[in-house]
């Protein structure tokens, strides 16, 4: 391994790293919102909306992100829905993640026992108060392990962005290998940057999981 090559490549990887992280977290944010909304409709069996989101969850959970991105990026423009690669990446990741997050949140909501709602009703709380002050916090706590696993999964999935020619870490590595043939250095930096991105998230996730396990209540 040639240290000079590593130094030479470093800025390009750093730039790609920032893009990956930015798109990754945008996608995860979309996934979070979408997941909570769909889990809400699914859990309370809201007519029409629960069927719609149920269908969405099944479709996106059972297809690969690569295929989803190809469809959104290359297919949709043909019927007049064109977006930039960055927006596509974030939306694609958000849609995929939303379906996984929804399952996580829903199992959390389902696990909150009925007696919690009944007790809250007996205390004279309104429907909104019960959901936001009692059910949601408990369900969220119960879903933490699933959320952590999904966040890591989604950050890993960002490597697929390279397929729609976003200059992410994967694309940079492939590009550099093709241009200069310094395969070892290019792959080494690729692994290092993914470790730098994923290990802190994984460690933080473990800490949060441990913390909420002690605070578990009402389950």
């Amino acid at each position: 391994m040639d240290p000079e090559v590593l130094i030479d490549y470093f800025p390009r990887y750093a730039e790609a790293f920032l893009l990956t992280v930015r798109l990754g977290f945008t996608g995860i944010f979309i996934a979070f919102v979408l997941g909570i909304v769909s889990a809400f409709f699914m859990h309370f069996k809201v007519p029409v909306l629960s069927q719609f989101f149920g269908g969405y969850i099944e479709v996106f959970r059972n297809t690969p992100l690569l295929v989803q991105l190809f469809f959104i990026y290359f297919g949709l423009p043909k019927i007049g829905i064109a977006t930039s690669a960055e927006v596509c990446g974030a939306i694609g990741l958000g849609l995929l993640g939303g379906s996984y997050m929804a399952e996580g949140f829903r199992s959390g909501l389902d696990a909150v026992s009925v007696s919690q709602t009944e007790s809250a009703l007996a205390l004279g709380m309104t429907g909104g108060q019960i959901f936001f002050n009692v059910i949601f916090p408990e369900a969220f706590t119960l879903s933490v392990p699933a959320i952590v696993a999904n966040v890591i999964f989604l950050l890993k999935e960002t490597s697929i962005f390279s397929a729609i020619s976003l200059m992410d870490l994967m694309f940079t590595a492939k590009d550099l290998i093709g241009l200069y043939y310094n395969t070892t250095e290019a792959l080494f930096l690729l692994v290092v940057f993914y470790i730098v991105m994923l290990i802190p998230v994984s460690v933080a996730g473990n800490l949060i999981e441990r913390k909420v396990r002690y605070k578990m209540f009402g389950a």
Partner: protein
Amino acid sequence: MGFEVLLKGSNMARLLSGLGVALKISLISVLISIVLGVILGSIMTLKKPVITFISKFYLEFIRIMPQMVLLFLVFFGTTKALGISMSAETASVIVFSLWGTAEMSDLVRGALSGIPVIQYESSYSLGMTVGQTYIHVIIPQIIRRMLPLSINLVTRMIKTTSLVMMIGIVEVLKVGQQIIEANRKSSPNAAFGVYATVFILYFLVCWPISILSKYLEKKWES
């Protein structure tokens, strides 16, 4: 809308055979993963420090790395570092088996260590031999715990193998690309129809499998 391209000539058949390529790779990898995963998972329950350390390192590394990175490491890395030139198919089977084995072994370890000691002790006190205990008591319970999760692994494997087009294997997406390129003049909107079809094909393959997995999980929950 571009669906008409698929009716021309043997385009649909080509697309399906592309899907077959991806499914073949996932099937081979799943079979290897199950065998190696069961072995590794059982070894991990022995709690030997060295084995625990090595298997933990292997598990963590494989699980933290995106599969695409692993694919590149094996496909391009080995060629450069070891001078072995392997086909893209071999590289992808190796990568997906490494990944599947990691996932599978963790499931096996979890299932094995989840069985309370009482189960073994009760069987022995009933006069069963070690072999009988495993065949009649332990293994049936493990299969019930493992089967839904292993079936789930199959759908994850199928979804992951779509990545092989990135190292140049001609699978369903690549065939789709070729069809779109070849018909650029006659049907400029082919991209919509072809990619929508690929999308639907993947869904039709994975959906029944995940329904089966969910059904078994519910049935054996207790």
